[in-house]
């Protein structure tokens, strides 16, 4: 295989421009999805079966269907209805950018909810009981004891979720957005060199994953320091 190195190099500025959009979408979706997941995870472990069912239906749908379907359902599907097109939400739903951001948020929010639920349930009973004995309850108990502990337990799984979200964001290209993959496909439409351009795009994704994985490893080491064997 002979690669066209010149074209690969020329495509780099545009692909990096697409990378910025990819990063922006992923970062915003992760923050919003993370915020969404906290109350939902708390509902998921509630003792009230009705309260439990609602977030379960949500996570079930978003974890049980492909992201591509969710994206198309939201972007092209909702527009089928006059009601939606005339609602106050239309100015937001009509934008591909917002559609992608909302769907990514709901998607990563669903996975994060389940990760966090598992972590909350893994918080040792003794700690919760001890806090109760001290007179803590409700919000304080969650804020001071359960959530801080759960975050640490969830950290490794959440690290994986970030990587998966980064990879899944490539689907933004299917609804007209010029993210890294979208930019690559647009450049290919001009150069007809899919292998070369996809290789450059792939290298950028790999570099991003590498940075994320190592950044997360540092964070984990810091946050979970107390679990490590003492060296001195």
């Amino acid at each position, binding site marked *: 295989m002979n690669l066209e190195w010149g074209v690969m190099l020329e495509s780099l500025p545009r692909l990096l421009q697409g990378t910025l959009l990819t990063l922006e979408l992923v970062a915003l979706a992760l923050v919003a999805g993370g915020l969404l997941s906290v109350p939902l995870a708390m509902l998921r472990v509630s003792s009230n079966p009705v309260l439990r069912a609602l977030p379960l239906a949500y996570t079930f749908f978003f974890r049980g269907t*492909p992201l591509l379907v969710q994206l198309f359902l939201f972007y092209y599907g909702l527009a089928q209805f006059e009601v939606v097109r005339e609602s106050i939400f239309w100015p937001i739903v009509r934008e591909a950018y917002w559609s992608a951001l909302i769907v990514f948020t709901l998607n990563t929010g669903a996975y994060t909810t389940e990760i966090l639920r598992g972590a909350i349930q893994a918080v040792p009973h003794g700690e919760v009981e001890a806090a109760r004995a001290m007179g803590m309850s409700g919000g304080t108990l969650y804020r001071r004891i359960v959530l801080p502990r759960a975050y640490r337990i969830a950290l490794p799984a959440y690290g994986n979720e970030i990587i998966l979200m980064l990879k899944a964001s490539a689907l933004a290209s299917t609804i007209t957005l010029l993210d890294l993959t979208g930019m690559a496909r647009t450049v290919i439409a001009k150069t007809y060199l*899919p292998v070369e351009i996809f290789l450059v795009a792939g290298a950028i994704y790999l570099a991003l994953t*590498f940075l994320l994985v190592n950044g997360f490893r540092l964070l984990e080491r810091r946050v979970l320091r107390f679990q490590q064997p003492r060296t001195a």
Partner: protein
Amino acid sequence: MFDLHGFGDQLLLGLGMTLKVAAGGLVLGLVLGLLGATAKLSRAKPLYWLAATYTTLMRGLPELLVVLIIYFGTAGLLTRIAGWLGHDGYVELSPYAAGIVALGLAFGAYATEVFRGAIQAIPAGQIEAARACGMGRLRIFLRITLPQAWRVALPGLGNLFQVLVKDTSLISVIGLEELMRKSQIAIANTKEPFTFYFAAALVYLAITVIVMLGQHRAERWAARGQPGSTT
């Protein structure tokens, strides 16, 4: 509930293709996962690095990109291999084959880690005991390691298979007429995107539920005779 405007048959055909690709990807992925795990646990450094490169690449690349690269990018490589095998013709992958290869590669990378963990969970004493009985390495793998490792690996593999089923939708971008593509064709004819994408979503949900139930049963079956099992 739904008026599918006569496209129900086409959607069913699409579902059939989705299941075929998922099954193909699963088989290829399981083989790659076992090979990968063996390579990663091997003492031969080149094998280790080969497997490590493979898993790092696949875990860092978006599946959509992998599908596109396999479909458009492997023709040159395959033709060369075919030439070495004595073929003069040009060889390329159909969307179906490209889909199976791409999904299998992705599944295999994650399955490598699952299998590795499962193999490592087997007490070293058992291997030593087997060796003391005079078993060879292959026999140890087949008789001692594999029968135990797959039970440990089962939950992880089930989750990966759920991911695989959902990822089959990505193959629609290279023109394979699976469920997603068939839905798009129906939409082009009927202009009812919500109806068909929602129908597709429900079908994927149904597959997920069936896979989950199957997973549950398989896990129970695998755990039979183990201490603490209820059956």
